[in-house]
């Protein structure tokens, strides 16, 4: 009796949360899959008839937007990596007792409302902004050039808004490195550069892989940055899904497009993990679990 009870304990603990995730994450996915194969309009009603044409139609109509979203998200991820790695490195190895305080400063901006942060960038990049005057004076932007409503602005917004997802995993993996290993490399006459390239960098790879994924995925589906910082030419796939769902109410097309987006992200992630090695991402976790 007690043995049976003991064996049931994990299911009691797991049950409520997992049921919640099944009911409100997995089941909705099924309904969306169904919806993506229906045809009809809001007026006539939608019927399920395996209309795969929703997929081909959405791909041909919005293919270029998909490509654009992935380019923007990829660029933002790359820039975020370039900004985050040295920052995380400095906090992990150079900050001493200021470590926690600096970490706090890095994360704090992301506890202001997401929309407000984006609107702050809209202010900074706007046509009346002093920043634009400086860039114009330096000749980096032509006199009638703009910062707002450009692809650059959207990428800048994406970079900024998802930065903590890059900094924190990299920091966590750098923090975990046993500094004795780096000292050992130096004792064995490795230059600082060699010690970094052959010890620190490979050991921090899991953080880099996790960080790039955590930045890329939300960035690829984002529509807030393109909405506030881009022009009509900079619309991302998220903007289209949102307007198909909420204003045009073409649910089947929107559902099909959502699945295409998710499938493409999954493919990108799988290729990336193959390339980077799943050990790099799941290493520590997999061994422990």
């Amino acid at each position, binding site marked *: 009796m007690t043995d049976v009870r003991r064996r049931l304990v994990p299911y009691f603990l797991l049950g409520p949360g997992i049921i919640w*995730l099944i009911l*409100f*994450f997995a089941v909705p996915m099924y309904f969306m899959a169904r919806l993506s194969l229906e045809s009809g309009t809001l007026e006539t009603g939608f019927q399920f008839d395996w209309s795969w044409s929703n997929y081909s139609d959405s791909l041909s109509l919005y293919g270029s937007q998909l490509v654009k979203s992935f380019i923007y998200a990829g660029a933002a991820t790359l820039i975020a990596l370039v900004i985050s790695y040295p920052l995380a490195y*400095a906090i992990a190895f*150079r900050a001493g007792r200021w470590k926690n305080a600096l970490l706090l400063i890095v994360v704090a901006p992301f506890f202001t409302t997401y*929309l*407000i*942060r984006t609107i702050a960038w809209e202010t900074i990049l706007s046509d009346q902004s002093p920043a634009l005057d400086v860039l114009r004076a330096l000749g980096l932007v032509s006199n009638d050039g703009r910062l707002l409503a450009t692809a650059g602005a959207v990428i800048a917004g994406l970079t900024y808004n998802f930065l903590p997802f890059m900094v924190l995993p990299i920091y966590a993996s750098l923090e975990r490195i046993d500094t004795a290993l780096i000292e050992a490399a130096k004792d064995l006459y490795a230059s600082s550069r060699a010690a970094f390239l052959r010890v620190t960098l490979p050991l921090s790879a899991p953080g880099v892989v996790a960080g790039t994924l955590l930045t890329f995925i939300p960035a690829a589906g*984002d529509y807030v940055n393109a909405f506030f910082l881009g022009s009509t030419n900079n619309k991302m796939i998220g903007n289209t899904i949102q307007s198909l769902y909420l204003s045009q109410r073409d649910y089947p097309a929107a*559902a099909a497009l959502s699945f295409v987006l998710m499938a493409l992200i999954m493919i990108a992630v799988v290729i990336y993990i193959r390339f980077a090695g799943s050990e790099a991402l799941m290493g520590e976790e997999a061994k422990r679990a």
Partner: protein
Amino acid sequence: MRAWKWLREHAVNIYAALAIVYLLIPIAVIIWFSFNDPTGKFNFTWVGFTLDHWQSAFSLPDLNDALRTSLGLAALATLVSTALGTMIALALVRYQFFGRRTSNFLIVIPMATPEVVMGASLLSMFLIYGITPGFQTLLIAHIMFCISFVVVTVRSRLIGFDRSLEEAAQDLGATPLVTFWKVTLPLIMPAIVAASLLAFALSIDDFVVSNFNSGTTVTFPLFIFGAAQRGIPVEVYVIATLLFMATIVAMVFTVWQQRRATRLAAMRPEQEATEAFAGTPAFPPAPGAAGG
């Protein structure tokens, strides 16, 4: 030459300092523009300093309603998702059972799903069932996307957990339930607090999923989005500043609490040393699967 050497040695630090400045610029802009006195409806250019909007921060009824909705929603979502998530984390770390891999997958996958897709799929389901979106659907959605983050946060703490304290309690005759309340829970409390803060922040900040599943209910981010076209009232900047300061206080508090927890934990090795000295036989390491 000497300047060059100094520069090379400190390049990383200088770079990091610049990155931090970059991170803080938008926050500075928000705080700065909360004192602005714009002439038109749009708060985009600096006109002049005023404290008016700080004094009238809570004088817009629509904004107040949106804030109240957001706070209530975040509180409820935090409460439920922290409880459910902590239970899942306990099950995953402490037990071996059938369906463990599937559960792990089900927890990771929502974090890897773009928010638009998550919001759209939930709306699809509500539409098919003929459920009118509103506060309840928002609450369902927020709990759903918070759970995974709570699990991940609490699990990381549980993995490094010293089980000998629990065994000691049980050797002294504590029932499993008493052991959990008196030993386990206090020890993982910092992680639970951190997880609930994260859940609260995620919920109060959520725009995308909420935009799909709100119906006519307006949360704080949805209010901002709606106002963006007409011009955002300066009061929003004031409230954003206040929220920012509140989170700083909350975070400083958790860091301080965690420090205290580590300091308390640091006192243990000495005790172990004295035990060993007294010849107490060491406990055999507990097998991972042994449940409490």
